């Protein structure tokens, strides 16, 4: 059994999302121009939670899309075929500020794939990045605009985000 530590519990996750939502609102004056796009499997759940908080702040609905990035990954030859999820973007991204939402920012390759995938749906005015955890070890020149928690990690460690699982508290865990 690997050793594991809880980095964020359910309440801390919700507090971090509330803060991120306020930072998104501070950065983007015009809420009507903002859409959220979550990256499965966890990012879409986070995006829906952010949308709920932002809708209260702006007093308008904030649309949420789901963007599968696996078909755009650069490591498809080096691994078993990853699980793919249907992409659902029920709005036009052209001219919008798209906030990409992911659970963990690590190498930056998922974010690169996401920006690539988003291109096929239109030309956003801006793309911003919100992540629950930034664990470092970037391999590409990518930086998050909104971070729930910075967690210094070793390469061998794993960060697991558990969200909306049946009979399980939400939590973020670091596995040694």
């Amino acid at each position, binding site marked *: 059994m690997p050793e594991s530590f809880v980095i964020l519990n359910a309440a801390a996750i919700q507090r971090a999302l509330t803060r991120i939502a306020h930072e998104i609102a501070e950065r983007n004056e015009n809420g009507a121009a903002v859409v959220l796009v979550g990256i499965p499997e966890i990012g879409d759940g986070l995006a829906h939670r952010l949308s709920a908080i932002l809708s209260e702040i702006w007093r308008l609905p904030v649309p949420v899309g789901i963007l*599968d990035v*696996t*078909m*755009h*990954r650069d*490591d*498809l*030859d*080096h*691994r*078993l*075929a*990853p*699980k*793919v*999820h*249907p*992409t*659902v973007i029920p709005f036009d991204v052209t001219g919008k500020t798209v906030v990409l939402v992911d*659970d*963990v920012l*690590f*190498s930056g*390759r*998922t974010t690169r794939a996401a920006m*690539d*995938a988003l291109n*096929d*749906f239109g030309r956003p005015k801006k793309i911003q990045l919100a992540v629950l955890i930034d*664990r470092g*070890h970037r391999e590409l020149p990518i930086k998050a605009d909104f971070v729930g928690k910075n967690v210094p990690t070793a*390469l061998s460690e*794993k*960060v*697991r*985000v558990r969200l909306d699982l049946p009979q399980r508290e939400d939590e973020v865990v670091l596995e040694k």
Partner: protein
Amino acid sequence: MSWHRKHLLDTESLSAAEIITVLDTARAFKAVGERLIKKVPALRGKTVVNLFIEPSTRTRISFELAAQRLSADIVNFSADASSFKKGETLKDTARNLEALNADFIIIRHSASGAAHFLSRVLNAHVINAGDGAHEHPTQALLDAFTIREKKGKIAGLNVTILGEILYSSVARSNIWALTKLGADVTLCGPSTLVPKTFEQMGCRVTYDVEEAIREADIINLLRIQHERQRKTMFPGISEYTTLFGLTQARLALTKPDALIMHPGPINRGVEIDSEIADSGRSLILEQVTNGLAVRMAALFLVNGGQGPQEVAGN
């Protein structure tokens, strides 16, 4: 999610979990086809060869588009315009294509076992696009995908396969796939083309067409393959239509939500009444759309390397 295979050769050896993985993956690829930009870079730089020793235009085009939508390059090879006529063997032909750095060989051949044979002599990924009377796995997978999409499930459904079974690769692949997913499969057709021995595959055989279709949720019609048929199998086309054709009168006996499938090409007025083929009960064109998504999924899955499936570090 489970897929560790380098090739897709049959449905007989697939587990239910592997079949579900293909269907789930295909769902995401179907959505790609509905976009303005119907292309993703997953197989960019890869080369796919359609090695069609037996002609099958719709299957070839489906694989061709599937490869193109994954950004692969594709070459079509057909037997009539090739060195085959000059006496080259299948093995030599395939190894020549591999020497051109083909990454995927899609093989269609009239000989059962052709795809398995190639998978043993090549390093490339091999996908079976129909090997004689043996298997046609992507057709069965697209049929299962279509059934699941329309009915929301497969387990517990009554699926009747009506028509020529004996020479049909589609029938065998469908029986393996659907029974693994928990469907109750019934076969029906002329006794010369539907031997009782098929019951060993876990399905039921009947020669009473009305009984076969009455409780069916899905009726999958298979074409009478004139090209594979010896003349002695049944007296004639019009007798086939009289005894086994899906006519309006027979359709009236079925459950109101029973849906009609057919892998094509359809013979209007033979195995299916023309109006039924064009009606809301028919899934024939949706099968074609879904076939493209399933073939994209098949190419994507077999392409997977040996590393971990999990996205690094998360």
